[in-house]
Structure formats: structure tokens, C-alpha cells
């Protein structure tokens, strides 16, 4: 049943904005709240160090966390409907595996962030191109795409294993391992234009496509009977979703659970209608990743890998959702 609670849209805006502002005030380096406010308002007073930390270190990182969280959650929500499978997330099509291989390959030769991100992005697109190739050859049914995704993901995981095997254990192997765990630690303003552009185009695209997404959750035959060009729409959704995931993973590394758990939490909150599910997933995904990344950079002197935190939060959250599902079906005490 679709809920009609009119307060939801305001909370949707408030939640990520509150998390965003809170994150700017928190960090390992103690900066007084008033100094932070002065820096954000462009007033004189705070030292250059404070300005650099807030404007050049925290701000781009928090912005990146918001975009990555929103992207992964929205794509997860869209793919769960598209593939009619609640256990699907943005990694189903092998895109993350392709990106991981691309990043690892680049890390073998350089630690330059821009080159690593570009390589991750390119190989994420190569992965989806291979999946699409399978789709073109054998029909773009969800089953073919899923099988294609599993095959391509396995291929890139094997190649990634090969790279890790030959990587220098003193230098490149730790860098690859850390990248695979996910982090926004190295985020700079110069990293953001591709992510912001793709997010700025991709999220509105999914919001505009909401009613088609609703129709794609039924069978292909029924969707076609309602005038939907299923194959074309599915291909476009996969392509745009891939761009969002590729841009996110290229910057942040492989971050699990956001794309799987957040859409389910959003469904509990606003119901299954994609008109509300897409903005709710985006808001929850952004807020969640901002808060987790804030925890990752402030809890200890050393950074906690983001993928570790999303896993630690995601597993119990998913289990609670599963218990709720069983209770709804009357299968649990």
C-alpha cells in the first residue's frame, strides 16, 4: 500500500541536509563551531588551516559521500524492480568488479588518484558493455542480463586476483586492498566534476522514469500490454544506472550494502511506489553514507574503511528487515 504521509518530502530534504551540515562540523582536528560557521559564511577570522580543512578537505568529501550514497541506493532500488529480485544491488551486472579491476590495474603503475578513477570508470563501462553484448546476442531478458553480469563479474574478479598476485606486497598490494575496502579519504575538489555531473543527470533521470519503473516490476508481457517498450527502457535504465555506479565506485571504491539495504528501508518508510521510493532512497542513501563516512574519519586516529562500516551496519539492518518480512508472512514468532 502506498502511504500518503505528506511530511515525508520535508524529511527527505531535511535528512541529508542535516547530515551534511553536521558532517562539516565534525573532524579529528578540533575546530570551534563558530569558526566553522565563519568559514562557511566566508567571514574573516578563522586561520588558513581551518579554511583549508573545512573547504578543501571536509566539504568535497561530504559532498562525495552524499552523491555516492544517493547513487548506490537509487540504482539498487531501480535494479531491484527491474530484475524483480529484492536481493539485487548495483553490483549485479559486474560493474563494480570491472571498476575494481580497472582501479587495481592502474594502481600497479601509479598512485595518481585521477588515473586510478579514470581506469576504474573505463573498466566499469567495459564490464557493462560485455554484459550488453551478451544481451544483444541472447536477448535482453532479465535472466540473460543477470547471467551476463555474473559471468563478467567472475571474469573481472579473476583478473583482479591475478593483479593482486603479481602486485608488490610492500607498495601496490596494500593500496589495492585498501581501495577494495572503499574510502573517500583521498577525495579532492578536482575529483568531483565527473561524479557531480553524472549524479546531476542520473538521479533526475530515475525520478522522471518513476512510473515506468513501477510498470517494469510486473512481467514483461504485462508491461508491454501497457505500452512500455520494455527492452529499450530496460537498456536505458541499465546504462544510466551503470554510469551512476561507475562514477561512484571509481571515486569511493567498492562499497557494499548501501545499494541492497537502503532501498528496502526506504520501502518500509514510503512504500513501493517509485515516485516516492527514488527520492527516499536517494535521501536515505546520502544521509547514511555521510554519517558513516563521518564516523570513518573521526572515530579513530586511523581511517576505518567505509566498506567495513557499511557491512557492519548493513548486515544487522538487512537481518531486521528479513525478520520483519517473515513476520509479515506469519513465518516468524
Amino acid at each position: 500500500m502506498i502511504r500518503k504521509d505528506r511530511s515525508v518530502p520535508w524529511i527527505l530534504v531535511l535528512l541529508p541536509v542535516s547530515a551534511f551540515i553536521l558532517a562539516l562540523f565534525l573532524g579529528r582536528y578540533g575546530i570551534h563551531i563558530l569558526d566553522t560557521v565563519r568559514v562557511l559564511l566566508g567571514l574573516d577570522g578563522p586561520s588558513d588551516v581551518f579554511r583549508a580543512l573545512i573547504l578543501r578537505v571536509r566539504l568535497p568529501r561530504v559532498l562525495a559521500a552524499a552523491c555516492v550514497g544517493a547513487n548506490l541506493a537509487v540504482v539498487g532500488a531501480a535494479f531491484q524492480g527491474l530484475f524483480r529480485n529484492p536481493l539485487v544491488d548495483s553490483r549485479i551486472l559486474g560493474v563494480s568488479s570491472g571498476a575494481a579491476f580497472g582501479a587495481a590495474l592502474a594502481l600497479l603503475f601509479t598512485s595518481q588518484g585521477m588515473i586510478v578513477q579514470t581506469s576504474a570508470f573505463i573498466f566499469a563501462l567495459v564490464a557493462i558493455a560485455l554484459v550488453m553484448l551478451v544481451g544483444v546476442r541472447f536477448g535482453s531478458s532479465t535472466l540473460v542480463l543477470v547471467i551476463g553480469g555474473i559471468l563478467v563479474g567472475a571474469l573481472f574478479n579473476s583478473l583482479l586476483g591475478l593483479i593482486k598476485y603479481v602486485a608488490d606486497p610492500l607498495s601496490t598490494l596494500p593500496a589495492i586492498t585498501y581501495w577494495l575496502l572503499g574510502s573517500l579519504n583521498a577525495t579532492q575538489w578536482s575529483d568531483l566534476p565527473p561524479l557531480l555531473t553524472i549524479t546531476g543527470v542520473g538521479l533526475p533521470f530515475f525520478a522522471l522514469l518513476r512510473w515506468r519503473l513501477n510498470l517494469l516490476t510486473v512481467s514483461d508481457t504485462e508491461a508491454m500490454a501497457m505500452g512500455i517498450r520494455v527492452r529499450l527502457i530496460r537498456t536505458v535504465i541499465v546504462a544510466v544506472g551503470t554510469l551512476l555506479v561507475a562514477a561512484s565506485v571509481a571515486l569511493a571504491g567498492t562499497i557494499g550494502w548501501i545499494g541492497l539495504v537502503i532501498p528496502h528501508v526506504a520501502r518500509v518508510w514510503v512504500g513501493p511506489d517509485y515516485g516516492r521510493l527514488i527520492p527516499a532512497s536517494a535521501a536515505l542513501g546520502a544521509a547514511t553514507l555521510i554519517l558513516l563516512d563521518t564516523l570513518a574519519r573521526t572515530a579513530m586516529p586511523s581511517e576505518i574503511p567505509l566498506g567495513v562500516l557499511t557491512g557492519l551496519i548493513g548486515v544487522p539492518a538487512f537481518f531486521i528487515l528479513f525478520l520483519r518480512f517473515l513476520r509479515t508472512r506469519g513465518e516468524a514468532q
Partner: protein
Amino acid sequence: MTKLWIAVSLVFLCALTGLAQSETTVIDQSGRSVTIPLPVEILVSVHGIGTYYVYALGAGDRLAIAYYIGVKTLSSASESMLRWEPRLAEILSYGDPNIEEMVASGAQLVIADGSQHEAVAEQLRDLGIPVILYRAETPEELKEAVVLTAAFLGSGAQAQADAFIADYDRMVNAIATDLESLAENERARVLFVGTSLTKVISGEMYQTHLIEGAGGISVTRELFGSWNEVNLEQILLWDPEIIIIPPYGLIQPADILDNPDWQSLNAVQNHRVYRMPRIIAPMDTPVPESLLGIAWLARTFYPDHVSFNLAEEIVGFYANYYQFTLTDEELARMTGQ
């Protein structure tokens, strides 16, 4: 007749000596008792650090297969290394140890890494090849590893091990004496980064012991585990006076000195960002060359306080332990002059 008795007695004594020396039993750094038939003439090292213990004790020519830390292929070996070990192309190996290859080499003993080669050691023991496992992450464990290695390399090696330990202690004591007038707040506060700008050492790593041996204070000594990823805010909070970059990886001092976000750091403002030099093994790892690592760090931290001659120490170390003569260019690279 007397000569005959003397000859018979000598043969008997030799036989007794031979029997006494036919095997030795040691406790390796994994706490296992290992019986090794003597003499060991053919050695395999699948421990990139342990290999250097063998060289330092004058037995490098007994290695049939050897791993060298940070060197996977000939192309990744430095010119110095190729000159130092002409057999490198023949014996260099890397990756997961190949049991059959080790057996085929005729290895009488394998030295391996206690943190990752337990299973390989079991397999080799089943095949009758003894395995020594090393775990050295402190100066004391390094010395213990060198003594352990000497135990199966013969009496000459024992004297060499004693000399190494004496040299190591002499260097640490000399630095301590030179710096004893320095108060705690005058000690260099050092950040040791890794292969990326925000990767740093923990308090449990050998590099922390090196910094302390050189009279410095590692600002990351409270961290635990292996390499830690930290963020710029934390580095600014530590505000180190000196930043050290290891002799591997791609980071150069200019990457830090020219980085606008790092400009407020004491170390950057005073241009005290250094990359450790490297001739053969990386001096920040628990290899015998780390003795020079301590000396280099102390000279870098306190150029006006230490009294030893770094160039003499370097030349002497390579001559005594690696039978290697440095070129003028290599020596200049090591001393930074």
C-alpha cells in the same frame, strides 16, 4: 708407530667431530623445534627478508632459490643489486612457494616467513626438508633471527652474527650517548608515511623501533596493526617536524612539499621531508641493513648532534656483511651528499 697412532687418533677425532656436527636442533621464531642435518650447503629462502640474513652471514652463495623483499623480477632489481649478486637471474624467485621446485633444487633447508608459510612448512617437513620460520618485527627479534641463522650456517657464521649484533648495539648506543643531553621536547617528532601520503606506520611496526633507536618519536606510535590509513586532519593534528618516506613506492618529497593542503605542517614549512635511500634491501624493514637505517635516520633527525661518520658506517657495513663495494654515486645517494 707413534705417527700411526696420531693418525688413527686424528681420524677418530674427526669422525667424532663429524658425528657431533651431523645435525643441530634449533627453536625457530614460530616456537617450533627444528632438527637440521649439517652441513647445510644448499639453501632455499622463500622469505624476502630472511634471504638477507644468509647474505649477512657470508652464505649467500649457498642459496639455490631466493626471494628478495620488494623484488619480483630482474627488471625490478636495482643496478646495485645486480652488481652485488651476479647470480640473481639464476636464483631469483617470487610469489607462492612451489614445493616441487624447492625439492628439485636439492634444498637441504628452507627458510620461510612465519606469518604466511606455516602450511608450506608442513608440506616440506613431510618431504623430509626442514624449514625455519622467521618472525622478526623488533630489533631484538632481528638479532635473534640472525643468531638463529648462524646456528645452521657453521662456525664462521656465528662469529659474523656476533659481529653484527655488536655493530647494531654499538650504533644504537652511540646515538643514545650523542643525544642524551636532549630533553624529551627536543626530540624529533616524526611521521613515517607509506606508499601513499595518508598511509602511515603503526606502533607495532619495525619502522617505529627504528625511529626510536634513532632518538626520534614516532607520532603514530599509538596506532596498532600494520599500515594505517589516516586522514589529513589527523596528520595536521600530529603536526610532525619530520616526514620520512620509505625507499619503495612512488611517493617523493615533492609530492608533500608541493601539496597545498600540507603547507601548514611544521615539516613542510622547514623542508624536512625525506625519502630513505636504498642500495640493496629497504633499510626500513627488519633486514641487517636496518642498522644503516637507524644511522641514516639519526643523522637526518639530528645532523648537528650525532658524532659517527655515516659514510664510514655505510662503506664498512657493505664491505663486512655483503662483501660489496659501493660506487661513489651509491655512497653519495646514501649519505645525501
